[in-house]
């Protein structure tokens, strides 16, 4: 590592200062979860595992935490898979094919991307009720995947746009159908995009709160975000345990991010080099 030039040091100090509130939040989360009592950021009592007891026993009539964790994992993985597959197909069609209404569709996708999804929540509630999907993981997975699709489509369109037409022509001349070409040539070449979108979708689904909170009521189908929320609503909040649950909830995010951050960078880098 080369030494930073002096004028960079000031920049770094300013940036570090701006990070203090977020960093202290993380530190608080960890300390509050680990120690019996904390004043500000200073632990005043001995460390204890009492705040972590939700890990091995049900707390206050809630389902065991592993139920919420498994539900959240299933939710995040399925949402991400659906999103990656459907967004890729839609994006390929938009990027490569001409069909009636293509421009209109492009416009719609853009508007939907900017649309505040929460404002649809009542309508979604009625539709899921109608379809018998209210209070099911399937229902909330479909809704979340659908709401995330516009972003995914735009992102993947950017990746497909960078593929060379000549390569697709070559594949057709070599004897491929368009469908096989999509899976065997186009998809492997946008792999950086698929990984980026997959990581992004996993993170977004893992962190989703409003949809599962509104569309799932059974405690057996609760997700981590709703599970955490239950610790906050009853008159007295046990902040120690809230913090401990928060740490558990946040750990997978850190893990996904550590694995996936280089893919996420591709969202802005874009494209494949041949």
């Amino acid at each position, binding site marked *: 590592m080369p030494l930073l030039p002096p004028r960079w040091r000031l920049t770094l100090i300013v940036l570090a200062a701006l990070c203090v509130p977020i960093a202290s939040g993380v530190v608080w989360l960890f300390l509050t979860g680990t120690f019996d009592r904390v004043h500000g950021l200073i632990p005043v009592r001995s460390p204890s595992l009492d705040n972590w007891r939700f890990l091995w026993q049900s707390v206050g009539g809630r389902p065991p935490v592993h139920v919420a964790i498994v539900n959240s994992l299933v939710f995040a993985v399925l949402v991400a898979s659906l999103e990656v597959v459907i967004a890729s197909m839609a994006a390929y069609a938009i990027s490569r094919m001409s069909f009636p209404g293509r421009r209109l569709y492009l416009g719609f996708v853009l508007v939907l991307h900017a649309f505040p999804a929460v404002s649809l929540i009542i309508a979604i509630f009625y539709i899921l009720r109608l379809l018998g999907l209210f209070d099911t993981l399937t229902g909330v997975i479909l809704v979340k995947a659908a709401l995330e699709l516009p972003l995914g489509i735009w992102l993947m369109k950017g990746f497909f746009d960078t593929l*060379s037409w*000549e*390569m697709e*022509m*070559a*594949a*057709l*001349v*070599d*004897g*491929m*159908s368009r469908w096989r070409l999509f899976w065997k*040539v186009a998809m*492997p*070449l946008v*792999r950086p995009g698929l990984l980026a979108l997959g990581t992004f979708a996993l993170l977004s689904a893992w962190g989703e709160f409003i949809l599962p909170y509104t569309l799932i009521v059974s405690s057996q189908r609760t997700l981590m975000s709703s599970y955490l929320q239950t610790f906050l609503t009853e008159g007295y909040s046990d902040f120690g345990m809230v913090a401990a649950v928060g740490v558990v909830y946040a750990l997978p995010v850190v893990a996904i991010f550590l694995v996936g951050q280089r893919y996420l960078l591709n969202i802005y880098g874009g494209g*494949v*080099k*041949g």
Partner: protein
Amino acid sequence: MKGIALRLEGLTKHFGRVVALQALDLDVRAGEMVAFLGPSGCGKTTTLLMIAGIYQPTAGAIYFADRRVDHLHPRDRDVGMVFQSYALYPHLTIFENIAFPLRLKGLRGNELASKVRQSAELLGIAHLLERRPGQVSGGQQQRAALARALVKEPQVLLLDEPLSNLDAQIRLQARGEIRRLQLDLGVTSVLVTHDQAEALAMADRVAVFSLGELQQFASPDELYTRPANTFVAGFVGHPPMNLIRGTFADGAFTSNGLKIPVPFRLPPAGGGTLGMRPEDLVVGGPIRGRVVVVEPLGRQVLVTVDAAGSTLTMLTNVRPSVGETVAVGVNSARLHLFDAGGRRVEAAA
């Protein structure tokens, strides 16, 4: 590999309101190499992509021998194609790239491997089979693309600007190799290029396109010595032919103050264009002009002369100085005459 004849009948392609190709009739003989030559946007690549099956013709028919193919999917046409960018699959090794069309035909195991190896040896890239396209040079990528196109022993080989991404040195070499290979295999081939030197050097016959229409389809010699119209005359040949608009009358051609004797009877008298190749102009003759530019080309000198308002370029062995007045003569046996519509007029003796 046995060549087949290729026939295009009234082939037309519209993109929306743009006419990319207008009613093209063309016959390619079995085993022949034909070049499509023209500036960009002239319809040559569009035609090639219709032969390949990438584009659907708006009208017209394409025949491979007696089989009509214009409604067929590319995979059912049996064509091999080399692209300007080579279009190798970057995520596959050279071996897998060449094997790709064979795998799609259902070939497996030893038969597949031996065909790939054979094709790679033909192109001299057998030692590169385990590399990826990004790890070999442009010339080697081009050979790999050619191997991929030839490995399935296609009925028709299509080459879309296959040399334009190569360095000038390798290009000359690759030009000869592709032609030699094509002759050896006897595969009917279509080469699309904007480079006339490439077209003239490689092809048995050249089709010159402009603005979606075929201008002339003839052998390289014929194109050069008897261009069918002013477009071909100006496009084929380097440095380009001098084309001067004026009038024909009384055994002479007149343009502004320039008067050139034309020693034969002129069918339709009146407006037209006189064409003179730079190498058919000589120092010493009836035309007087002032030297504007002198460009040494090595063996010869390209001299630009202003003659009474008309610009003439000539290839000479003498080197006049700029500003000097020179006398220019014309080899009148090699004059090209075009009527007011730009079509060639044969001079009657």
